[in-house]
Structures are given as C-alpha cells and as structure tokens.
C-alpha cells in the first residue's frame, strides 16, 4: 500500500515537474529576447563567446538621444498615437452606439465589412492610402499618419464600443427615468459611468495598435513624422545593434504600461479582437 502511494506520488510529481518545466521554457522563450535587448543596450566590448557583456555602459542611450533624436521621435509617436486614439474614439462612439442599440438590417454583414481592414493585409490598401495622401499633401504630417492609422484602429474601437453599448441594460435606464432623472441627467450620471470602462479599453487597444503600427507608417511618414517603430527599422538597417537595442528599450516602456493596465482593467481576450464569430 505504501509502495503504491509512493509510486503515485512519484508519478504525480513527475507530471508536475514536466508542467513547470514546460511553463518555464515558455516564459524563457517570451522574455529572453527582451533580456538580450537590455543586455545589448548596456553592454560594452561584448564580443565572442561570452554569456554576459564584460563592461557596462550607458553610452548607447546617449547615442540614441543625441544621434537618432529620440526625444523628437517619441514626441511624434505619441502625438500620432494620441490623434489616432481621439479620431478612432470619435468614430467608434456613434457607430458603436448604432451597432449596439439599434436594429439594423444585415448587421452581421455590415459588421464584417467594418472589420474587413483587419483581414486584408494592410500593405494592400496602404499602397492606395499612400497615393491618395501624396495627392492631398498629407504625407509627412502628424494628422496624415494618424489618419492612416485610423484605418486599422477604428474597427477595434467600433467592435469594443458596440459590445459596450450592447451590454447597457435597458432596465437601468428605465429605473433612472422612473426615479425622475431627465435625459441629460441620465446621460451624465448613468450612461457615462457605465460605458466609461468600455471607452477606456477601446482607447487602450487603439493606442497599442497605433503605437505598434508599422506598415501604414512606413508608407506615409516623412522626415518630420518618423515614429519609433520606423526609426527602429531604419536603425536595424544601419546595423547599429547596440543603439537600436537602447532605442527598443525606450520604445517598449509604454507597451509594458499598457500590459499592466490590461491586466488591471480589461479582459485579455479583447486584445486579439472579437473575431470569435468568424
């Protein structure tokens, strides 16, 4: 009997060991690349078969600031992402409301059309967007780059916000009316607090999308609107891996903040889009 129990425990522990080894490998696979970037960005004279850089330095960060003008580039990126978030939210609120609260014939079809920009490879319509923007002189303006981002951000906003409006309970609104609130009061004291989380999560997702957007930026940027992803790409092309790493460390910080917010606030499923019905 004891033998049996010992055997079972051994099997159980082996399983557990296997599971944790697997999870450890998974975590390593995800985080080691970032560790390599950090090490590369602070390492000096790191040649040959060495596991760790022999000397530490912050020179590469100074280079990143001085040579690649990272302050301006960060400013560009944030302005563009901010504009894209504002525009997508402004588009998303009315459209999301109509999708969520109104009976629209052929709603499914309309929704899948709205989501189409996320299904077709962005480079296909980025070519067209670039040609239109050249004609309208929107290339190399913050507004232009942000507007091109809206093409991929707005579907997200509409999707998240229509789900939010759909979740709004009719009975709560009725209760407010019964309690004597006028429509204005209902709006500010009932509806806004109820949809605020939805708007926030839509803003977080559109921000991430715009912040990481590369294809559309590459086709619409100019020398005054270089964003961090584009600059990273250019730096990789130039071959300064250390400076690129330093820039990447700076570039990754907002993403980590967003990840933190997501973990605090919103369901992660939404991040990969609500294509579950596809």
């Amino acid at each position, binding site marked *: 009997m004891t033998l049996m129990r010992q055997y079972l425990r051994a099997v159980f522990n082996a399983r557990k060991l296997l599971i944790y080894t697997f999870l450890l490998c998974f*975590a390593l696979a995800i985080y080691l*690349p970032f560790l390599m970037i950090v090490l590369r960005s602070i390492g000096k004279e790191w040649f040959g078969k060495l596991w760790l850089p022999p000397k530490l330095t912050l020179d590469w960060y100074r280079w990143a600031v001085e040579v690649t003008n990272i302050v301006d580039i960060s400013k560009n990126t944030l302005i563009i992402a901010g504009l894209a978030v504002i525009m997508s939210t402004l588009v998303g609120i*009315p459209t999301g409301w109509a999708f969520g609260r109104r009976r629209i014939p052929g709603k499914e079809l309309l929704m899948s059309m709205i989501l189409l920009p996320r*299904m077709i*490879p962005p*480079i296909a319509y980025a070519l067209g967007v670039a040609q239109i923007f050249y004609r309208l002189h929107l290339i190399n303006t913050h507004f232009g780059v942000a507007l091109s981002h809206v*093409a991929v951000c707005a579907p997200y906003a509409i999707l998240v916000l229509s789900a939010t409006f759909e979740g709004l309970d009719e009975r709560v609104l009725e209760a407010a009316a019964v309690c004597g609130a006028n429509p204005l009061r209902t709006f500010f004291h009932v509806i806004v607090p109820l949809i605020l989380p939805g708007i926030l999560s839509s803003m977080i997702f559109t921000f991430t999308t715009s912040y990481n957007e590369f*294809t559309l930026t590459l086709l619409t940027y100019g020398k005054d609107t270089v964003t961090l992803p584009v600059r990273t790409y250019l730096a990789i092309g130039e071959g300064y891996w250390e400076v690129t790493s330093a820039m990447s460390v700076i570039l990754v910080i907002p993403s980590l903040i967003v990840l933190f917010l997501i973990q605090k606030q919103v369901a992660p499923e939404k991040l990969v889009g609500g294509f579950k019905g596809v």
Partner: protein
Amino acid sequence: MKRGAKARPVLITLLMLLPGWAIFFGLFFYPMMITVVRSLRPEGEQVGWTLEHYVRFLSEPRARGVIVLTFVLSIASTLCSIAFSLVLCLVLRRKPRGHRFFRLTMLVPRVVPGLIGALGLLLLLGSRGWVNLFLLQFPFIREPVQINYTIPGLILFYTWLYFPFTAVTTLSTLESLDPAIEEAADVAGANRWQVLRHVIVPLIMPGILAGSILTFMAAFGAFSIPLIAGGNYRPLAVEIYRQIDFTPARWSAASARAMIMALLQVIFLTIYMRILRRPAR
C-alpha cells in the same frame, strides 16, 4: 405624421453609422479601388489599361517561389501555433501556481511592437546569442547553428509573434467547456488520453480554428518581421514593398502584387471557412 415619427429614428441611426462608413470607404474601400486601378494602368501613367504587371509577375520563375514561401511560412507557423497553444492551454486550464503570470506572458508578443520582438529574437538566436552558446555546450555541436535568416528560423519568429491569437481563443473556449462532459467521459471509463482525443479536442476545435484564422491572417500579411529578419527570403508583403522602396517607385507593379496577395488570402480564407463550418466528426 406617423411616417415622420418612424423615419426619424432610422435617420438618426444612419447618421450615427456615418462616421464608421466614412472611415471604411475613405481609408479602406477607396484606397483599395485605387490599388486595383493602379495595378491595371501602365507604369507611371494615368490612362490606358493593361494586364502586363500581373502577367509579368506571374511569368517570372521567382514569383512561384515567393507565393509558395508566403504560404509555407504562414501555414507552418499556424500549425505550430495550434500545437503549442493546445499544450499551453491544457496546462494553464489546470490553474497551476502562477497561472495569472503565464496568462499575461502569453499576451506579451501582441502588446510589444513586432519589430522589437524580432530584434530580440535575432539577438537571442544569433551565432553569439544565448541559444547558440547553450547548444555549443553539447560535445556533438561544434559550430553555431544558423537559425536567423533561414526558413525554420522565420517560422519560429512568426510562431513567437502570432501564437497569442490562437492561444487566447483556445484558452477561453477551453474554460467555457462544461466540466460535466469530461466527467461523463471519465465515468464511462475513458482514460486521460481518450478524453483528450475524443472529447476535449473535438469540442474546442471551433475555438482553435477561429483563433488560428487570426494567426494565419497575421502571418500571411506579416511585413515588418520578414523585412528585417527574412534575409534573402522575401514573402509577398516584402516583395510588394521592394517595388516602391527605390526611385522611380513602381507603383503599378506593387499594386498588381498586392492584388494577387489579397486575392490569394481571400481564396484561402474561403476554403478555411468551408472546413470550419463542416460539422465536427
């Protein structure tokens, strides 16, 4: 009067839908049309119709290689993502200690800009990276293994970047599964493997497939990763960009390739949906 009262809400609905439609037509449909028209025009001209860009690209012997490469990369990375996500989600479903941390870890490749992930992987898997330093500890490996800029390497990159789509949907389907079904199979005398093979997997298949579509679409349209990590291998997206990368930019040639790419994706997705809609065994 009655008609007017009925028409107003409809009008409001339409007005509210307007911004969404404006964005759809202005930033997607119209550019798409421009791409279509551009691909049918002679290079650099505003008039005339021609199919030469399609014909020229498709008759190049390299073209088949480019298309096959795009499909190989995206299908292989989708399959890898499915296999990996399945194992990961089955493990995470048991809620092992620290599962919240691993759930968050799963999202990291989606939140961080793809270029940075690719840069980190290039550093990690390079000839001086930790993976090769580790492999060199083994006596039978003498030379650093070349992983970057090879096809298996690219598949690895794609999988790393795009598996979260599959993993997140798989996990949420798995968690909405009724535990009673499993228990029933258990009571009926099925062993662990049989339960997995004949009960769990068929039940969560729709979720896996829906997620894997997202992975496939992302991998098919992947642009930044092959651009910096592809080396000599150029999938369609990079091939398109190469046409307008230099002056004089060849917009028509690029547009023709983009149309071929969009068409291939739509065809493949249609087939995929067919498979998906088929009732499970």
